[in-house]
């Protein structure tokens, strides 16, 4: 019973990483841009966040540094893709490769570094409820911020004018342009915002989730976050749900190992990646379902007057 509560707690925590990054990518994709550089941005942000916490001791400063790193890299990506019309897939891939290389290079001296001891979080009263308290109310504040972010994003995308403009830019940039909206500037803003969220997720990984720095520590979470947007058919609430589900799959491996299940650990480590493939297959099986939900101009460049 108690171990189930801990499993739920761990899944929510792991899901939070995926959800924050995936919501960022969702903003990008709603504006018509696919950023395959998520993994690279998260790696650089993880390092930036970790290094900041090592030097300042403040986790919040680490989050800010991570967001700044993510936003900066995303801005470079955006400038190339939106103003120079480079191929989105290739440029995103370049960002992932560069981010992996750069973070490994710049992070060598931080490999042995340690972070200050972290305080335990618990919501007064609620945390004392048996089972539920352990499962839901003893999390880092970021877990609740992330859940709140989903509602914020739903409100922004579907209830505000700015959100409508953002979506129109992803559906039909030509129409948005004809109506006088600065399509490229809006897309750049969306890309930078998405990068900042990926950066926040990266910094959360290296400062809270697994407080250390190792080369390549994001281990595909950026790519899984990309798959999640498709899995969620581009709906914020489903992104959160999917992220928690994947968090559960990731955590189940440790749970099973703890229970002494006799499967080689490598096959358990494989699970989140296999699960991503299975989920992609299930969701993509029906092409119409994808086509109806996907932003119509996703991945297509737009250059006014061309």
């Amino acid at each position, binding site marked *: 019973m108690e171990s189930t509560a801990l499993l739920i707690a761990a899944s929510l925590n792991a899901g939070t990483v995926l959800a924050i990054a995936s919501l960022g990518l969702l903003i990008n994709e709603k504006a018509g841009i696919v950023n*395959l550089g998520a993994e*690279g941005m998260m790696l650089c942000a993880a390092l930036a966040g970790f290094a900041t916490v090592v030097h300042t001791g403040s986790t919040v400063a680490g989050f800010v540094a991570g967001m700044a790193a993510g936003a900066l890299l995303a801005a*470079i990506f955006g400038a*190339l893709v939106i*103003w*120079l*019309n*480079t*191929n989105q*897939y*290739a*440029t995103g*891939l*370049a*960002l992932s*490769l*560069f*981010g*992996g*290389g*750069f973070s*490994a*290079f710049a992070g*060598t001296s931080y490999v042995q570094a340690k972070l200050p001891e972290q305080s335990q979080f618990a919501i007064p009263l609620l945390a004392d409820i048996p089972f539920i308290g352990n499962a839901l109310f003893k999390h880092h504040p970021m877990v609740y911020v992330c859940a709140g972010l989903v509602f914020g994003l739903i409100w922004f995308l579907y209830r505000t004018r700015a959100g409508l403009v953002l979506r129109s830019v992803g559906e039909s940039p030509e129409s948005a342009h004809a109506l006088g909206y600065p399509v490229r500037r809006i897309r750049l803003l969306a890309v930078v915002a998405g990068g900042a969220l990926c950066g926040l997720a990266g910094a959360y990984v290296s400062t809270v989730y697994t407080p250390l720095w190792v*080369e390549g520590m994001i*281990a*595909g979470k950026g*790519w*899984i976050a*990309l*798959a999640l947007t*498709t899995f969620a058919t581009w709906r914020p609430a489903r992104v959160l749900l999917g992220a928690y589900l994947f968090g559960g799959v990731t955590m189940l491996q440790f749970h099973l190992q703890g229970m002494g299940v006799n499967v*080689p650990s*490598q*096959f358990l*480590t*494989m699970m989140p*990646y*296999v699960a*991503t*493939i299975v989920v*992609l*297959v299930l969701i*993509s*099986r029906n*092409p119409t379902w*994808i086509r109806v939900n996907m932003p119509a101009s996703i991945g297509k460049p737009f*250059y006014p007057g*061309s």
Partner: protein
Amino acid sequence: MLRLEARPQPSARWGYASPLLALAITVVIGVILFAALGKDPVRGLQVFFWEPIKSTYALSELMVKATPLLIIALGLAVCFRSNVWNIGAEGQYLIGAIFASGVALTATKETGAWIIPAVILAGVLGGMLWAGITALLRDRFNANEILVSLMLVYVAIQVLNYLVYGPWKDPMGYNFPQTKTFESVTQMPRLMQGSRVNIGLLIALAGVAAVWVFLFRTYSGFAQQVGGLAPAAARYAGFSSRKALWIALLTSGGAAGLAGALEVAGPIGQLTPYVPAGYGFAAIIVAFVGRLHPVGIVFSAILMSMFYIGGELAQSRLGLPKSITGVFQGLLLFALLACDTLIAYRVVWKK
């Protein structure tokens, strides 16, 4: 302000000049980086661009590293020209290496030289199998090949770990996670005394010719490229996009698997957790920098090999982390993509 103006025709001149300009930009950023880190930039450039070519031995090591990059990138060129985004070559390379090792491990002292083609064939089949999963899921279920092929890289790494930590671990290996060293009969024959260059280089060069003929002299290669450039035209012409998908993925998977086989039965000589060296990802950059053209890829593979060797030397000679290679690889691709804009657009000054 500066504006981009579409050229009436893509510029052929910039097609050639863009990779050179991208390299120049990467070098300039590299010089700035060296200076910022307090290292002598001249020494830095020497380590990357002179040391790897200054002697026959250095040149042969350059070829050893360039061979897998060249082979994988040739396959990827076919794939990318067909507009199929296989970015999981690293995984296909690994499974190729694993299949090849499986055959190589059966060899005993009495085994004949037939084992060499068997090892190579096993590698190719392993790579094709791994890429075939991506092709099947894309073809049958419409699953995005970028994400599937990439996820399979992580799966392949775990398969490798399972084998070297589990059933294939050398019982005499002091508990190190690696297989026993392969019998010498499985070693790819070397081309000359005193260097590690082996028949892999010849296979790679034959691959250059084969891919050139396939792309530019066969009907099937033509259909492949039309499908990549103009899917609607290809459909109208009756070219099967499913067939193109399978050809693209099986070719690139087979090539990556081949490279994996040549690597484990060549310079490495056993299966270890260090087989994944990022060649599969670097080869993506090699393919783009080489303009997805077999001859261009020869040059870019050599360049990328210089980056690898330069990175190792930078570690031993300049005290910089080896991962500086990854920084330059990423920068080169970024710079190339930016410079490629000049092929389709020209920069004009407009008020």
